[in-house]
């Protein structure tokens, strides 16, 4: 019975990470694309746009990080 619970926890961690990484991937790619457009339109603001892009990506990454925390909890605390 313990082995079944362990297997279910590991499977859950994998599924959690896989689905949870979808959203941030799409979001970060979208932000990077928009930043490319902005730099192409006004190259003199490139450094400001890059800085804002990095901060925005780090914020939009947080849902992926939450799923990572849940996956780690599933792996290490069962």
């Amino acid at each position, binding site marked *: 019975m313990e082995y079944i619970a362990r297997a279910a926890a590991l499977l859950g961690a994998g599924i959690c990470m896989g689905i949870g990484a979808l959203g941030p991937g799409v979001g970060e790619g979208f932000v990077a694309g928009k930043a490319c457009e902005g730099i192409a339109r006004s190259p003199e603001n490139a450094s400001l746009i890059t800085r804002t892009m990095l901060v925005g990506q*780090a*914020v939009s990454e947080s849902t992926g*990080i939450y799923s990572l925390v849940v996956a*780690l909890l599933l792996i*290490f605390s069962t």
Partner: protein
Amino acid sequence: MPAKKGGLKRIFIVVFFLEVIILIISGGLNRQLQIGFEEGRFFIRNVIHEYNLQEKITEEFQPDRYLQEKGEKAEIYGSEKLYTLFSKIFSVNNAVSAFHLLRILFIVNLAMLGLAWLIRRQIFKRPSKPQVLIEMLYTFFEDFVRDTLGKKNLRFTPYIVTLFLFIWTCNMIGLIPIPGMMEPTRNLNVPLGLGFMAVTLVHITAIKHKGLINWFKGFAEPLAFLAPLNIVGELSKAISISFRLFGNILGGAIIMLVVSSLVKFVMLPIGLNLFFGLFVGTIQAFVFTMLALTYIGVEIAE
């Protein structure tokens, strides 16, 4: 100077070939060359190196559980009295990790106090190099505070700069290649404490700015029975910024350990440390401070 041109490249090539030679001498990836003294005799051994990743991760991230599973007698630096003291203050399941955390936090605090003392001691009209660096950092954040909060509220700048410097130093500690030098932000207690501190500051500012009655009214914003939702929303601010920092640092540490063990710790860990240690650490420290600043700005703007 011809010696300096491409010096770093040459060092990398030399280190790489040294590692390859060491690997060849040790006869494959699963073996380890041991050189040392034992019972007064010099020896060179070629032993099979058993590297258990699961065990290593448990040792690194849950030291108490590792000690309990191994059945070894738990003690901190050879002192049983210190261990009993720590297991009385914290629980038995947290004693060793709490000691590690406190030790690293003490080192971080000492480093920051030393830096402050050094800078404070030599403030001149013609500034020295470290003073210029610190002043650049301060004015960088002062501009942010002026943009977000307005000219009247420049008194928040020291808090913001201190927050950034503390989190950044915490994240950079992991780069020092000494066993036991882990990032304090890897433990959830540190980011959670910083997050609750920031949210408390936000509400104190709100009470000062709007008055106590208006602050209470702010919780029943659209409708009175939505007040529990608003309170949970305020708590989730702290949880969201602290879990972001914690998850990034812990995930980076675990990925570094796993990938490094896959390549048997040859060369690649340097690049991993550059990305997960330097880059992610700096970005996350910056994001934490920016979000704390934005939360304060939302309360002041109304």
